């Protein structure tokens, strides 16, 4: 098999997520790539929990669709995750025998999985280790044998985890693992489930997530100040930085509220340091007034919004891409804040560095629009090569300019050198109030128009940044996909699958979402008969933004879904199949109807 998707669910305390993490670290050691998505009920502790792990010998683009292997410690918990753990006709289902349900009557709504195994997991755990908590290691033993998973790595993980808890506990868990292996040996699956081996087998892999990558990138880019407030699913950015930032001479404020967090960051930027804040939807709404100030005062600032299901409290632990309108349009007045959207954890590094670079170069707030899937899924990646990134600093006034300093001087580029307190001769008044070139408050309509023009024009060159777009596939294809953020990896997989079948299709992934790069979109759209914008929001927000700026083909449609359950690559592939070989002169709406796509 090219890759393998395992989904597991149980009650809190069953150690399901911990089993997923053990597998992840074992795969990393063997040189595999993977994405581990964890999911919990809304309880702080206890309740149901699940994880899904997609592993491959090549970089994993997305968490994938239907499960190859499903493990249910109890069906009630498993079913609570619904579309998060989809099972189909080719899935292998393993479940706890104690449930008393016969393999023929497992509650999967009529889906008949390829193989169903009822295993006395709890009994094996009790017999081998004498404790219920060893159930997850029985499962690891079963999977290790049936799926041909890297046994040494899993055992090493078990040893690492339990060695601190005493020899007895460690040996018990090792026995539980062995019991799982033995059971699987005695009851072979009758199907080869092993995955392709990765090419690199040494320890050349890193386990991380988007939030950590974002925080590391901030430090790499020279961020010396972070102001923020705890909010799911962005908090880990602050948690990482509060461990690391001090040692690099920076500081961090866990503020009294979201507003104070970003306000302090703006203050730090005014003082001459690179500054960041991070939040999620509701917090982002609170921060928008200060973002307006940063635009008016032309202060560099990076604001990360790790999107979650909304509106309001919504679904804090679930993925969604529904804050695009908020990011683009929540400003008051005529402002434009660049928006960068990473497509995965690796990208979260690169684009956070880029966000600082753009913020510093153009003296503007920049929004990094990440999402829960990117931010919190654990991934195995290749180590990032810092030599690939450059770090840009703000333009400071030279001695001559300081002689008669005009902080907001009108220049060809719209960028005027920026001083900071402590710099002799650079003294000026920063303000949200409209100001003239020296920074003095003004009520002149003419000056207001000139300053608006300066603040907006300076961002025009961004639209030429082709490196912030990915274009893949057949350039003259009549079928084209546009996708962004964490969903882009799904579209990418669909594209590659379809092209492997000989279909002609192309894909555009904008990482610079805003300002809208009209020229680039126009070129991409030119060959299209059918265009699909694939994204995870009910309204199809990118689709609507593209239509605001561009003339689109008649058959340009939004394939948009509310968040929490990811769109699956298979859905998109099916649609491409119909569109790339249209049987009659039918409309896109017709094909969407055929597939029941809203």
């Amino acid at each position, binding site marked *: 098999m090219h890759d393998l998707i395992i989904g597991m669910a149980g009650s809190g305390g069953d150690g399901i997520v911990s089993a997923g993490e053990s597998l992840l670290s074992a795969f990393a050691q063997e040189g595999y790539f993977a994405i581990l998505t964890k999911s919990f009920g809304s309880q702080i502790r206890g309740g149901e929990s699940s994880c899904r792990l997609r592993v491959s010998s090549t970089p994993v683009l997305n968490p994938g669709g239907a499960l190859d292997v499903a493990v249910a410690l109890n069906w009630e918990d498993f079913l609570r995750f619904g579309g998060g753990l989809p099972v189909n006709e080719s899935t292998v289902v393993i479940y706890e025998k104690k449930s008393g349900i016969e393999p023929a009557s497992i509650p999967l709504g009529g889906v008949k999985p390829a193989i169903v195994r009822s295993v006395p997991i709890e009994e094996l755990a009790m017999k081998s280790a004498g404790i219920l908590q060893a159930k997850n290691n029985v499962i690891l033993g079963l999977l290790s044998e049936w799926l041909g998973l890297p046994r040494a790595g899993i055992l090493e993980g078990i040893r690492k985890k339990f060695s601190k808890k005493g020899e007895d506990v460690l040996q018990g868990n090792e026995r539980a693992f062995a019991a799982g292996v033995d059971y699987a040996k005695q009851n072979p699956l009758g199907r080869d489930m092993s995955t392709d081996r990765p090419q690199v087998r040494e320890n050349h892999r890193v386990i991380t997530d988007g939030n950590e990558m974002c925080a*590391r*990138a901030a*430090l*790499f880019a*020279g961020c*010396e*100040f972070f*102001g923020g407030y705890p909010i799911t699913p962005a908090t880990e950015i602050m948690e990482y930085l509060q461990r*690391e930032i*001090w*040692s*690099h*001479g*920076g*500081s961090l*404020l866990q503020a*009294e*509220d979201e*507003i*104070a*967090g970003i*306000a*302090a*960051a*703006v*203050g*730090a*930027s*005014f*003082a*001459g*340091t690179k*500054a960041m804040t991070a939040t999620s939807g509701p917090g982002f709404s609170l921060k928008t*007034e*200060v973002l307006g*100030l940063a635009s008016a*005062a032309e202060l560099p600032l990076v604001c990360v919004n790790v999107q979650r299901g909304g509106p309001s409290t919504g679904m804090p632990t679930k993925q969604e891409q529904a804050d695009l309108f908020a990011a683009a349009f929540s400003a008051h007045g005529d402002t434009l804040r660049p928006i960068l959207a990473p497509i995965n954890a690796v990208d979260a590094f690169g684009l956070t560095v880029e966000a600082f670079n753009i913020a510093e170069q153009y003296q503007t707030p920049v929004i990094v629009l990440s999402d829960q899937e990117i931010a919190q899924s654990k991934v195995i990646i290749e*180590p*990032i090569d*810092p030599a690939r*990134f450059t770090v840009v600093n703000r333009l*400071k006034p030279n*001695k001559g300019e*300081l002689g008669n300093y005009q902080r907001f001087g009108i220049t060809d580029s719209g960028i005027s050198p920026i001083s*900071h*307190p*402590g*710099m*002799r*001769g*650079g*003294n*000026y*008044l*920063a*303000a*949200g*109030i409209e100001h003239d070139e020296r920074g*003095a*408050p003004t009520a002149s309509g003419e000056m207001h128009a000139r300053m608006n023009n300066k603040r907006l024009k300076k961002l025009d060159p961004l639209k030429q940044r082709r490196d912030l777009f990915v274009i893949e596939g057949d350039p003259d294809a009549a079928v084209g996909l546009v996708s962004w953020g964490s969903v882009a990896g799904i579209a990418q997989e669909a594209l590659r699958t379809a092209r492997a079948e000989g279909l002609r299709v192309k894909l555009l992934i904008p990482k610079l979402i805003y300002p809208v790069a009209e020229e680039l979109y126009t070129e991409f759209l030119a060959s299209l008969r059918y265009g699909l914008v694939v994204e995870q929001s009910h309204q199809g927000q990118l689709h609507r933004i593209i239509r605001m700026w561009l003339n689109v083909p008649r058959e340009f449609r939004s394939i948009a879904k509310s968040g929490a359950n990811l769109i699956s690559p298979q859905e998109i592939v099916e649609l491409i199949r119909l569109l790339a070989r249209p049987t009659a002169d039918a409309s896109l709406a017709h094909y969407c109807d055929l597939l029941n796509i809203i």
Partner: protein
Amino acid sequence: MISHDSASHCDCAAKSTAYTAKDYKSELKPIWCPGCGDYSVAAALYRALAAIGRPPHEIALISGIGCSSRLPGYTTAYGFNSLHGRALPIAQGVKMANPELLVIVAGGDGDGFSIGGGHVPHAVRRNPDLTYLVMDNQVYGLTKGQVSPTSPRGTKSHAASFGSIEEPVNPLLYALAYGANFVAQAVPADLEGMTKIIEEAIRYPGFAFVNIQSPCVTFGNPETQVKLQKARMRNLQTEGHDATNHLRAMELAEAYGKTLYTGIFYRNPQPPPTYGSQIKDRQQALKAKTPIEALA
């Protein structure tokens, strides 16, 4: 800060020039009404800054929105006329980013005790080395006369036709209860006293709060005007108040709105560590073991 270029270094130690009040006064003409108490606050600030003698480019004056928040523009220091209510967190960011700066926060009673009221206790409990000057005029002047958080109960205006039915905030008691280590009150009627208080507040290591009863000539209560302050004001120090006595300070502060005390209510003789000094300690203790490149 890690990466200061040569132009940005504070040359605090190299100071040899003596500064006068006018070195801190900018050429901008204030928008304040003739007779506004804020003129005196500006004058007192210029004098206090001259007495302290830091060059203007090493001073950051951060304000919110309102009449009084125009103050930074009338100085030659680096100024930031920011957002309504957000001066304190912005100032804390400035100070954390560059602890060498002299950072002063200015604003009105609406800024500090209404829209930005939630920031005050947190600024106090962190104890950054900031001076917070509130120009308390008990009215929203810039928006033309609405009641403010410090307007006395019963205050009538065209925007409160039937009079305020809310108790006013007591800024002095709030600051003391939050744990501020330096709490004082000043009035424009006593320019010399205000200058001294502002100077002492700036010199105090840690968060210093000065409530300035700066009357609004246009929308304010006639009984609070500057010329009447002279007769009403009672100087705490002249009356023998021991500014190290926190409980007594709170008792006296309760008279806010009734007795016009000026001077220092409370001054902790043993200033606790400032936020900045604790940050510096932490930065030094954790000093980078790994190069930033290794973070990738």
